């Protein structure tokens, strides 16, 4: 039976501070899954698709994606993850970004993002959002089961 621990959290976030805050709050929410952090799109893609322990070869995973990356646009990455022939098209993706621009949010949902979280400047709301992420994480265990078994 697949347990919590088997879901790897892939965090693609170029801002070290944000990454640290996200990690702290995830841990604080009582989630102890492995978190792998990438600061750019290229290395993240490499791990996700090609690495033996990556989710393409060895799922399941949850992706936390920041839209502002130094080497590529986050929305492009999202599009690639959710493309028809992608190995990650069923992997839940949570977009975490600073803007709450309606157009951008809609765009992300259209591309197939599962949750969109704005990083509020207000830290309490931020922490809340991440904690809710923890709740989400426990919910997504169910649809991931067959894939994990297969």
């Amino acid at each position, binding site marked *: 039976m697949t347990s919590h621990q088997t879901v790897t959290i892939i965090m693609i976030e170029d801002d070290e*501070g944000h990454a640290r805050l996200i990690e702290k709050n995830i841990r604080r929410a009582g989630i102890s899954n492995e978190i792998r952090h990438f600061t750019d799109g290229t290395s993240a893609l490499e791990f996700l698709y090609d690495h033996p322990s990556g989710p393409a070869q060895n799922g399941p995973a949850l992706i936390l994606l920041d839209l502002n990356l130094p080497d590529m646009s986050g929305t492009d990455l999202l599009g690639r993850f959710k493309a028809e022939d992608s190995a990650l098209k069923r992997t839940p993706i949570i977009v975490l970004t600073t803007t709450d621009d309606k157009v951008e949010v809609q765009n992300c949902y259209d591309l197939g993002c599962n949750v969109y979280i704005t*990083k509020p400047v207000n830290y309490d709301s931020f922490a809340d959002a991440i904690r809710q992420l923890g709740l989400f994480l426990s919910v997504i265990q169910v649809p991931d089961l067959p894939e994990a078994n297969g």
Partner: protein
Amino acid sequence: MIRGIIQWDRRLSRLAVGAITLGFLALLATGVTAYLSVRENQFYASRVNHSFKVQRALTDFIAEMNRAEIGRRGYLLTGVAAHAETYYKARDGLFPLLAHVRDLTRDNPRQQANVARLIALTRSDLPFMDQSIALVRSGRRDEGVRLFRDSVGRRAVTTLRAQTALMVDEEDRLLAIRQAATARSIRLFYVTVAAAGAILLLLAAGSIWVIARYTRDLAASRDQLRLLNDDLEGAVRERTTDLQRANDEIQRFAYIVSHDLRSPLVNVMGFTSELEATAKTLGAMMGRAEQQAPDLVDAEAKRALREDMPEALNFIRTSTEKMDRLINAILRLSREGRRAVTLEKLDMDALIQSIADVHRHRIDANDIDLSIAPDLPDIVSDRLAVEQIFGNIVENAIKYMVPGRRGRIEIRGRSEGRRAIFEVADNGRGIDPRDHHRIFDLFRRSGMQDQQGEGIGLAHVRAIAYRLGGMISVDSELARGATFRIDLPIEFSGEQRILE
């Protein structure tokens, strides 16, 4: 330049009208002259005719006289009674003929004198002639012939003829004068007709010239106007496109800046909170240390942890929060600029009333008189944007009342051509005229800073007004209230359309 052309045009048209009027007057004058010359001609022709009549009467008289003389001589020679008859017949016709001549020449004193002499001559000769006939008839033929010889000796008939010829000559003289006059009047007539023809030709040519010139000028100015118009439209389109591009760039810039500024701010806020948590842990530890080993805790460390650190953290937090609000304001402005406007017909009476209803609670709580003028002009615009404009201004009016003075807000509107002008007037604290421009700038405020706000509202309002093709201005003095004037197009077509 155009003014000069118009003036010149006016002068030209006045000149043309004058010339044409003059031409027609000249034509009229020639007509009158022609008429007069024809009448003169008729008059002289009748006089010529008259002279001919006189001459003919005189000729008739001479012929009659000759016939009488022939009859007398025949009778004297032959004694045939028929000759006497001829004589008498001719003799009786003499006086009526003379009377006829006298009547005809009544207008000419010289001929009257002549005819009087002729009558006298005839009258003096006739008795002798009658007597010679009578003598022959009574058989005293010799006496009759003697008498005839006497009369030949007196050259009576010759004198008569000479006198008549004199009169004919006189008529000839008159005839010559009259014929010359007739010829002159005919010449005058021809000259006038020729002049009229010339004037007509000139008039026609002048009129054609003026019309042609006008038509050419009109066509030229029409072409020029069209050119100018096309040019203007092109220039406006170009300018609008440039402006739109610049505006888009600013919007993008504002969006990126605010977006990227927020990122570090999340860190500042986040780690400040982490620090606070750490401080709490440390504080708890210090509390325990105070209890268990009081000599380890010095006053400086205590102050650092209990006062300096919370104070610093607090400043960091409030400043960050303020910065976040400012960034949000920029973001909102940039979004407002990017938002697509949806045009619809707005019932402004209802719209303003709904804004008043939104603020009803605060209006009543502050005991403010709000009056909305009836029949505000309706406009075609974006509902949300217009609501934001008026909502903001009404809110400001409520916010900046003078404490202790009963507040009054008046909203009125009128249409001027293709623009609708709305005014929101209050009797609040007013705005220093020096700040009238400043208040529409982002983050700028005016007057006493005793009210919450970031200096965003009016900047936002102005951005929206510009977006809707409108303008906003303020008229105010300190402590005298303020009147905000919002000038919007009655039918906003959207500058976006120009771009497309």
